[in-house]
């Protein structure tokens, strides 16, 4: 791999520009929330429930209060007047959705292991943690509700005030009769049941928050390891009852989030309320073992998917019934996660009839919420696994079944049966490129050879062709889904008197490389050196407007806003230059930071001079405001729809059941490519995270509701040693949705890779009659499946 440092020029986009974020991250200069040195800060520690479901009969904090270094200990009762509202849920997906109110500390009842019961403030972290051990809590234990289908039965209701475990039922069934008719007339049907296990998002930096009251004026600065400083500011104001004008939220360097930091957490709310109560800075950093139970989990669904197909294997209808695990409470966007997949269960296939139903239930487990891909990995998994099942039934290959069903290129923009308009795509071209790169014929021959030779290392080839909706989102569409905010993004581009450029963005990067990519967008347009551009972000005092970073939205929406703001600044500079040169604007060319008169290139006016003119305002065109700055809030007209072919090759040891991923190839189409280096980084990490779900990771609970995979020794996050070198390719189909023609890449690898790996495992074993293995495909699970199949 080659890397180049490109500094300027009109061809910045598409270059492998080294990330300008990295030097300070690699040298330790970057500051994370826990690094902030705040004199006099009190350290907070949270006592967490050790039982999954219980009434609290007593809490004795007296011994903890008298321990050295302890300043205060509070329970729900002590703080019940400190809240302006319960913990926020911003996505009430239906009008009748049940959302039991919950507060930062448990009110008389705990509902999962990890639920906050009491909070300690002390002069040191260790004093606070030691004091937790001195708090005595009496529990009257109740049977926990752990299984999703048992929860649906309502024989044991967790939140008695709502009288049911069902939070909501959400349907997308444009024409039920047509779906039923398609199934009645089908030559082939498949009916599959898949389990999306719970996953524990394991960002390298755990959560952390520091709240600092201003010395006067009643203002607070909240430093938080969050993906969503803007959303957090609004929600803290509403929950704690501090005027939004008094709050400044800053996300310092943030070490990954994967959706888990797209939230408003009890500890953030507590830290602000307690800083207000005690008029002292309050800080809290999550311990790694707390992260396993107190940060949201991802996935957690039972998926029933049925396909109807005609005699040629052409799919005529898809019908999906989900049961989704909300966990104990609804967090910020918990109920909306299944909806982000709800429109994509037909995948990349031209399926005319569509039926989707989701029932979402409470359980006595950690709340779920967004986790990389959020709804879309689940949808892709179900359709891509089911297409393989259909191929086996029809008696054609996994390649052929897909080719027969792709949305044809000429149908773009494509009106899907689920009601979306897919922006652009050329699936067959992408697929053919992937198959060529992979050398499918040789692989298939090798696979057959091993079966024939009775090898104990079988080969499996798994295909996953994914499409996702990202670039969240047109605000009116979000309104139709009852989402509590818009999907626009804000940008300001400002050329200062010395011609240095400030770019202010409402996105909140936490590893994505926005400082690099946003600089490139501006440099491309203005033809100035990257080093002259500074990107400011993640501080609501500097960037008051923003919708933050999640859902692969930042480039498509935030990057577009910057592109448009840059154009406006350039237009204004052009007007200044034309005024100075006494020519019409249309008589000017612009390149490399200099305006020139067409036909008279010696008559020039630099952008830097326009910036100074705008600042001094000594000689501006009549009516022009001083300063060279433009602010844009851009609302996208549609989602974007990245896609791609992912192919996994596994070796299955039939004696031990161990699966080795031996090759992995991804050919992604994310539209125009701003920085291939960043794209490849996103794809690599995304693949690893999706492979992790297929082979390694699972939030495992015992029958009492204890998370038993609660350490990184037991929760198997894979490392480079478990993964092959990824083989990457691309096709480029620009999106017509935004001026950059980009689609988004942050979640693609995660969305595509899980079904690719699972299809590969089933492919290796299907000649034994094996059609499904639950995730993660641990050696024991695979061994048991092989044992059962070969005993038949």
């Amino acid at each position: 791999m080659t890397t180049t440092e490109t500094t300027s020029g009109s061809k910045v986009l598409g270059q492998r520009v080294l990330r300008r974020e990295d030097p300070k991250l690699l040298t330790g200069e970057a500051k994370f929330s826990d690094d902030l040195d705040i004199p006099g800060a009190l350290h907070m520690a949270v006592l967490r429930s050790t039982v999954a479901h219980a009434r609290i009969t007593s809490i004795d904090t007296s011994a903890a209060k008298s321990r050295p270094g302890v300043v205060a200990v509070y329970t729900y009762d002590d703080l019940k007047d400190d809240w302006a509202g319960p913990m926020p849920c911003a996505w009430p997906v239906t009008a009748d959705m049940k959302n039991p109110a919950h507060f930062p500390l448990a009110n008389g009842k705990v509902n999962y292991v990890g639920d906050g019961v009491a909070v300690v403030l002390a002069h040191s972290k260790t004093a606070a943690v030691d004091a937790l051990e001195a708090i005595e809590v009496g529990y009257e234990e109740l049977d926990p509700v752990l299984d999703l289908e048992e929860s649906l039965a309502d024989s044991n209701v967790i939140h008695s005030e709502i009288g049911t475990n069902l939070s909501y039922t959400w349907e997308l069934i444009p024409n039920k009769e047509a779906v039923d008719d398609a199934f009645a007339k089908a030559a082939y049907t498949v009916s599959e049941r898949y389990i999306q296990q719970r996953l524990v998002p394991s960002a390298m930096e755990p959560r952390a928050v520091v709240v600092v009251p201003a010395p006067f004026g009643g203002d607070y600065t909240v430093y938080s390891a969050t993906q969503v400083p803007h959303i957090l500011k609004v929600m803290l104001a509403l929950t704690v009852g501090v005027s939004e004008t008094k709050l400044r939220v800053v996300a310092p360097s943030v070490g990954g989030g994967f959706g888990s930091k797209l939230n408003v957490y009890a500890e953030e709310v507590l830290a602000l309320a307690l800083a207000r109560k005690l008029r002292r800075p309050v800080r809290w950093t999550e311990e790694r073992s707390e992260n396993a139970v107190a940060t949201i989990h991802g996935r957690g669904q039972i998926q029933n998917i049925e396909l109807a197909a005609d005699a040629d294997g052409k799919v005529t209808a898809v019908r999906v019934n989900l049961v989704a695990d909300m966990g104990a409470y609804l967090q910020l966007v918990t109920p909306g996660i299944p909806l982000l997949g709800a429109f994509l269960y037909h995948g990349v296939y031209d399926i005319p009839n569509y039926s989707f139903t989701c029932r979402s239930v409470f359980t006595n487990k950690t709340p779920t919420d967004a986790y990389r891909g959020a709804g879309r990995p689940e949808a892709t998994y179900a359709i891509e696994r089911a297409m393989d099942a259909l191929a086996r039934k029809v008696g054609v290959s996994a390649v052929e079944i897909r080719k027969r069903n792709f949305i044809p290129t000429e149908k773009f923009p494509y009106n899907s049966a689920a009601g979306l308009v897919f922006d652009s795509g050329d699936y067959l071209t992408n697929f053919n490129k992937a198959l060529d790169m992979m050398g499918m014929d040789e692989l298939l021959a090798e696979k057959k050879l091993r079966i024939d030779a009775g090898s104990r290392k079988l080969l499996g080839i798994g295909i996953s062709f994914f499409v996702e909706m990202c670039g969240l989102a047109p605000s009116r569409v979000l309104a139709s889904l009852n989402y509590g905010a818009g999907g626009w993004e804000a940008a300001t581009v400002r050329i200062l008197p010395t011609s240095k450029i400030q770019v202010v963005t409402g996105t909140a990067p936490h590893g994505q490389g926005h400082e690099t990519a946003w600089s490139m967008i501006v440099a491309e347009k203005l033809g100035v050196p990257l080093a002259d551009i500074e990107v400011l972000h993640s501080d609501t005092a500097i960037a008051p407007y923003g919708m933050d970073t999640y859902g692969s939205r930042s480039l498509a929406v935030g990057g577009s806003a910057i592109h448009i703001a840059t154009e406006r600044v350039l237009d204004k500079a052009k007007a200044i230059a034309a005024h100075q040169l006494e020519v019409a604007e249309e008589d000017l060319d612009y390149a490399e930071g200099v305006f020139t008169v067409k036909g008279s290139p010696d008559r020039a006016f630099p952008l830097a001079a326009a910036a100074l003119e705008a600042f001094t305002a000594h000689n501006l065109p009549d009516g022009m405001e001083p300063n060279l700055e433009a602010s844009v809030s851009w609302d996208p007209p549609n989602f974007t729809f990245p896609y791609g072919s992912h192919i996994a090759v596994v070796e299955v040891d039939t004696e031990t059941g161990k699966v080795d991923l031996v090759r992995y190839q991804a050919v992604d189409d994310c539209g125009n490519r701003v920085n291939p280096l960043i794209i490849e980084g996103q794809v690599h990490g995304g693949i690893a995270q999706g492979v992790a779900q297929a082979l390694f990771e699972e939030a495992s609970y015992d029958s009492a509701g204890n998370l038993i995979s609660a350490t990184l020794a037991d929760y198997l996050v894979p490392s480079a040693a478990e993964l092959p070198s990824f083989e990457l390719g691309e096709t480029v189909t620009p999106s017509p949705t935004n001026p950059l023609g980009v689609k988004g890449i942050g979640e693609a690898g995660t969305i595509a890779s899980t079904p690719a790996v699972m299809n590969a495992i089933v492919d290796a074993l299907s000649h034994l009659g094996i059609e499904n293995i639950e995730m993660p495909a641990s050696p024991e699970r695979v061994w048991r499946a092989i044992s059962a199949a070969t005993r038949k």
Partner: protein
Amino acid sequence: MFPSTFDYVRAGSVAEAISILDGSDDAKLIAGGHSLLPLMKLRLAAPSTLVDIGRLSELNYIEDRGDHVAIGALTRHRDLETSAVLKHSVPILSHVAGEVGDPAVRHRGTIGGSIAHGDGASDLPAAVLALDATMVVRSASGERTVPAANFFKGFLETDLGQGEVLTEIRVPKVSGGWAYKKFNRRAQDWAIVGVAVVRNGSTRISLVNMGSTPLRASASENAINQGASIEEAANLASEGIDPPSDLNASAEYRRHLASVLVRRALQEASA
């Protein structure tokens, strides 16, 4: 992940470490800290005093002593992994050390620390068991030796008393074949099941994570030493053994793995 409060003393010599241990009910030695500190952070262990012997260079050596190799207890895994003496005379130990944890662990962890911790899921205790190594133990009353077969007593329990320090591991040189099969899901993990085979005249087979201590696969050993086929011997791998069930493997699956891995290890050691 904060341990309970404890005192910390850095010992300047083995003798000083012994005298501190003798003066305390529950002081613990710490060398690399890669076994003890995680337990302390989870508050599963809370010794009042840690006696740091990690920097005692007097216990950091690998010496050829004719029929055996003597290894100082504070020799790091990384030094075992790269030792020319071990690679020549006890290659299995060098290989097994390279299978422990990840590079960070191998640069900090010590052979004595691993063996004194006595974890049935660790690699090196099983290796010294298969090698029939001898442990040298020092205390205020002098020095004694304990064969590996008598050293591991129970779950994280060894023959070491409170005032005793494991100072040296004496490992017989290996003349025949050997193999180490470590089965895990991630490279850095403990073995789900591991098998060490050493053919030094007779064949010794030890098992990792098949019980609360490293274990000898006695039935397999007896069978192979009495002329049974590798397949027959391997099928007896877990005879008389009651393996644990955990997130990674049920007892039934562990028994199956033990047979597969013993067979593969015997085949490799015989090749």
